[in-house]
């Protein structure tokens, strides 16, 4: 398990142990990866993050069409593996969780422990977010630092 934000590590490890999820990705609603577990290639995690954020954005628009603020979660059921996607608010803004699970878990277990993960993250979040000014000259350095944190290289 690797995380850009150190305070995310403990709640996410607890979630992974309890839910038996195979792959997990936490990202911002813009698709910026916060933490990942189970992915071995950076290209996979970036693709999954971009697609997960896009799915949440498009279903959010469907939610508005039917009079909902947003859908809480959605499940893609596969033959052997399934994907659980959920958006949630944190002290650092709106995040998205993408969880891949198989026959070792169930959607009920994933939902149950994901809700606990949301509570644990809210409790573990530092009181004050670090002030960050996004500058073009910092972008590549910060991107590389995030990739090192997520993949150890």
């Amino acid at each position, binding site marked *: 398990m690797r995380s850009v934000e150190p305070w995310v590590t403990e709640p996410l490890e607890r979630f992974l142990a309890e839910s038996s999820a195979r792959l997990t990705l936490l990202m911002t609603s813009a698709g910026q990866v916060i933490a990942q577990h189970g992915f071995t290639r950076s290209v996979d995690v970036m693709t999954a993050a971009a697609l997960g954020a896009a799915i949440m954005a498009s279903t959010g628009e469907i939610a508005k069409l039917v009079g909902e603020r947003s859908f809480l979660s959605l499940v893609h059921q596969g033959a052997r593996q399934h994907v659980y996607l959920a958006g949630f608010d944190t002290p650092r803004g709106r995040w998205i969780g993408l969880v891949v699970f198989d026959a070792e878990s169930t*959607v*009920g*277990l994933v939902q149950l422990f994901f809700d606990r993960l949301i509570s644990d993250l809210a409790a573990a979040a530092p009181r004050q977010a670090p002030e960050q000014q996004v500058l073009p000259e910092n972008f590549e350095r910060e991107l590389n630092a995030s990739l090192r944190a997520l993949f150890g290289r």
Partner: protein
Amino acid sequence: MSNPVELLERLSTVRGLRGSVLVSAADGLIVAESLMTGVDGRAVAALAASLMNRLRRATECAGRKEPVFLQLQAQSGSVLATPCGAELVLVAVAGPDANVGLARLEMLEAAGRLV
């Protein structure tokens, strides 16, 4: 197949039962429930279905075929569960004063009707 809600309500008349829940075995989600307040049905459903799936694998590996009934005794009561075919699990939450023998009979009968 009988009406699940009616069967759960009948189960709740057994002395000491705090409620029961019918769970989808494959996904751990509630199909029908009749629970007293203070019992987290969603958590009971997800965890009991997971437990029953693992028990099913354990009994099959031991050559004992399908599990028939589970009584998980805790310090302040029990969790009872029985499979209803391959797709459903009937779970009951019992207090320390529960008539577990009668609950078992009623649950097995209800499970037979739910298949």
